């Protein structure tokens, strides 16, 4: 299962939980300067940008007001068109990265963190088991 590359992609996989991508990196994101794989490159013609940076930019640029149907902050469904949309399989990774960013920001969801530390996520809330020891670096296959 472990195909750890010497030059692994720095993007995170997952929506409800986050883990390392670990595919071999093929290029460098122009924004965050991290090494990324082909799948985690946002579909842009001009620049090389990772799907996480692209999602952050899209969310920063978004101006539509946030109105939830149940009127409560942080939880509940949002307006129509706010939910995940149907996309082609080849656009799934980038599209889900954008929806993930929006969902975390607007619903206050804190994903479980099962990956290696990454300072580009330091502004986000997430959950992990903190017993004061270092990451033992093991996988799930060993239990």
């Amino acid at each position, binding site marked *: 299962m472990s195909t750890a590359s010497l030059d692994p992609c720095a993007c995170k996989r997952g929506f409800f939980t986050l883990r390392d991508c670990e595919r071999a990196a093929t290029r460098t994101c122009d924004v965050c300067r991290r090494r990324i794989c082909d799948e985690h490159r946002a579909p842009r013609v001009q620049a090389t940008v990772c799907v996480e940076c692209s999602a952050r930019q899209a969310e920063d640029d978004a101006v539509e007001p946030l109105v939830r149907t149940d009127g409560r902050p942080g939880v509940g*469904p949002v307006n129509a068109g706010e939910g995940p*949309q*149907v996309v082609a399989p080849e656009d799934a990774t980038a599209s889900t990265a954008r929806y993930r960013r929006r969902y975390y920001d607007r619903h206050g969801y804190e994903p*479980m*963190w099962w990956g290696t530390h990454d300072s580009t996520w330091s502004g986000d809330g997430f959950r992990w088991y903190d017993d004061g020891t270092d990451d033992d670096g093991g*996988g*799930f*296959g060993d239990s």
Partner: protein
Amino acid sequence: MSGLKEHRASLDAAQRAVLDAKVVGGERPALEWLGLLGPVLAHDVRIGEALERVRRRTYAASSTFVGGWIVAIVSGVAGVAPLGVAAGVVVVLALLTIVALRVERRRLRTQDLEGEPLRLTAALLPILAEDAAPGTPVALDLDLTGHRTDAKKLGKSDTYRKGAYHAIVDTFYDDPFLRARVRFADGAQVSIAGRVQSRVSRKTKRSQSNKIKTKIKTKTRTTYEVDVRFPDRNYAAVPTTSGGPSPSGTDRERVRTAPGRTAVRERRVIKAVGPRVALDAAHVVDLVAHAYDRVDPTRRKKLR
């Protein structure tokens, strides 16, 4: 309709089989399901557009039919024979058009899928693909035959009266349209279910002019349910909360711990008036997120 046939021909055998059977079942990786179902959804959208075109043409033909009759009668009374004949021809042509459109409508409606469950599933698949354990399929059962077909009928009420209505008969339907199961990379077993229950009330009353008037009113209740079994080796239930309403207030939640796992069930019900049922994958995302809010990680490991 033009284009529909060609589009259907562009689909592969598995996709055409879904269009014909209107049910989907099996196990495939999430994005493979999306590759299969995306074009089926696109085809169903085209069928919907074709039905809308037929509806508009039927309206135009009906207007022409009525207009033609009026002109024919007026010209008959006024004794303008050529105009009367022309109007008669228009009436006949309009009638033939209406009949042809009826046939086309029936043909299209037999092909039409219940599109919303398909759209919901297709929107959800990329998210499941992110969290699914590597190489693990999504088990999917999807019913696109419709929320209120004869097969979904549960039964009828006795005739009863209420207010101005002297006879009301309720017909009840139950459509469990979706079941999906997948194992996530963290070992969580996730089950997703969707169901639409309908009550169709046929209400009859006498108007003031003593005419019998019948009205049909449909109420629906859509239930989204998510079950997540979190393995003990990675998660433990958050101690404070157990049962009761989840953060949104309207949802139902149940947390059960057993040796080896914590099972969280989240349920959201959306009630609506009218025959149309709009589904939104965001509800399912919320429910899975709420389930994850009921547990904490119990160890610090890197998940690959």
